[in-house]
């Protein structure tokens, strides 16, 4: 157990360092950034969806809050994107608590629909309010390359590094939660909230905590995205398709497992790139077909995702014939 828990982390760090050394092209680095970004997003989602069992199909709303908050503060008040990132995270956490209070008592399906609806409302509003850019979106000011400016124009490698940092943060949060009381309580909440209440688990409190943490981490990713692409609009940061992709990385990889989302992202991002390249213009349809088929297969055959699949493989391999 001791050696086991250290090994994946070591392998992870090693792989993260080796990857850009082996594949240095801008396209490859970009792919790496995307994998790490979605791994972070999926890991953040996992805290609420996987561990607490509250399935959200509207997480893009926190991504959008993060990216718009830091961008607006940068453009209007000249606030450093790093500070703006923290502000975005705080705002997202607050939003999560305010939204969670009335909705967490809704049963699974109704809650999931509520999350879709909330994100759609945010999407529509932001797209139509000119004060935040409206349909035109917001262009970030081009500033000289520097860590302070959170902008790098000569190479994408620094972005890769920050993306890895984001993932490390999300993973650390997950591992910490897993090992402490909160992690156990969340599992109890997911299994049977009423039984949990009878032995002292304050269900709402813990769900709100998970939601706030999940939202904050998601918002950090939103700011990163804004600084990476230097342009944001409602359609790129609030859409349902993004919420679905975020949930899918965790579900595919293994909801409720710490490394699940990383696995999911490592499979989905390359898949999405391949379908885009292979099918050209109609690539959009093909990746949806694959995503959809994957989700259905997982839910029918192996709801635990790739991680659970790996578990059963390991069991079968290790079991004496």
């Amino acid at each position, binding site marked *: 157990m001791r050696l086991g828990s250290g090994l994946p982390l070591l392998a992870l760090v090693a792989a993260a360092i080796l990857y850009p050394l082996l594949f240095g092209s801008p396209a490859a680095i970009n792919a790496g950034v995307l994998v790490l970004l979605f791994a972070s997003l999926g890991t953040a989602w996992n805290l609420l969806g996987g561990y607490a069992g509250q399935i959200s199909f509207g997480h893009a709303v926190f991504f959008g809050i993060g990216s718009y908050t830091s961008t607006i503060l940068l453009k209007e008040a000249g606030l450093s994107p790093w500070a703006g990132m923290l502000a975005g995270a705080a705002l997202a956490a607050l939003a999560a608590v305010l939204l969670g209070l009335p909705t967490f008592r809704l049963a699974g399906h109704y809650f999931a629909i509520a999350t879709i609806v909330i994100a759609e409302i945010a999407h529509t509003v932001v797209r139509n309010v000119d004060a935040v850019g409206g349909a035109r979106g917001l262009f970030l000011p081009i500033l000289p390359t520097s860590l302070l400016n959170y902008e790098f124009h000569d190479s994408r490698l620094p972005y890769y590094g920050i993306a890895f940092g984001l993932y490390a943060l999300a993973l650390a949060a997950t591992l910490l939660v897993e090992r402490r009381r909160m992690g156990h309580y969340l599992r109890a909440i997911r299994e049977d909230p009423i039984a949990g209440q009878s032995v002292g688990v304050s269900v709402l409190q813990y769900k709100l905590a998970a939601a706030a943490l999940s939202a904050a981490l998601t918002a950090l990713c939103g700011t990163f995205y804004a600084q990476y692409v230097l342009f944001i609009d409602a359609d790129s940061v609030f859409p349902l398709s993004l919420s679905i992709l975020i949930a899918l990385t965790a579900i595919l990889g293994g909801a409720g497992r710490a490394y699940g989302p990383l696995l999911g992202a490592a499979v989905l991002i390359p898949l999405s790139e391949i379908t885009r390249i292979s099918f050209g213009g109609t690539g959009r349809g093909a990746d949806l*077909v694959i*995503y959809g088929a994957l989700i259905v297969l997982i*839910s029918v055959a192996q709801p635990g995702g790739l991680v659970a699949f790996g578990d059963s493989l390991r069991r079968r391999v290790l079991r004496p014939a």
Partner: protein
Amino acid sequence: MDIVAQTVASGVLLGLILALSAAGLTLIWGVMDVVNFAHGDFLMLGMYASFFGWAVLGLHPLAAVPGVVVVLGAFGVLVYLAVIRPVLRGSVLAQIFATFGLGILLRGVAQFAFSADYRQIGDSSFATGSFAVGPVHLGIPQTIAALGALVVSGLLFALLDRTTVGTALRATAEDRRAAELMGIDTGRMFALSWAVGAGCVGAAAGLLATYFPIFPDVGAVFGLLAFVTVALGGFGSVGGAMLAGILIGVITSVAGLVFDPAYKFTVAYLLYLVVLVLRPQGLLGRA
């Protein structure tokens, strides 16, 4: 004032179709406690079926409606057997993922096979134009479609209320255990709920296709609106869904008039949240 009457009228027309589609959704929900997240995409499929019936077979879309009902009904049973029944034993999470994934899959297939182009059924042999009822002008295709929806809804009510099968369905919805004890084959009822539910969606789709553009994402908004309608009407209540459908149709129509048209559906979405938080049982639903 005339504009308001006009808006309300066209809202009612669309609302009747929405009501029918929501009836299908709530039927499955009521009988099995399963939410079909792919509901909107079922509608999309039905619309494409109607389109190809017209484009390839030369079928008048109104004549094609029974065909679409059958096709979608059969598809519903297939989905139940292949996807729903296996995940019934699993967690609620797995059930949510299953139909959600199905919806994405259907949308992707449509995009891949038919491209994202907008299609429309229409040629000169069709009824077009509008007629006046007092100060209000109603589009003829919309009115015919709405009347069609009324007819099918009436048939649905007759099925549920007057037939043995319908009563068995309602019994299963009310108390599964008791229904089992009465000798009702709940497995068959589940499959039937999908057949009838999907059939309703098919009817709505076929009627809608007579005038509404057809494209892969058309199910997205209609799907969400159907959820809003079911929530407002009360989960599991077919009558509630029908009433709520008309209401939502009017609300979205009027919202488009009062606010920026971009917020038409936003108002309906807000209504969903308000209803769920303040009156979870909706207008006519059980707890």
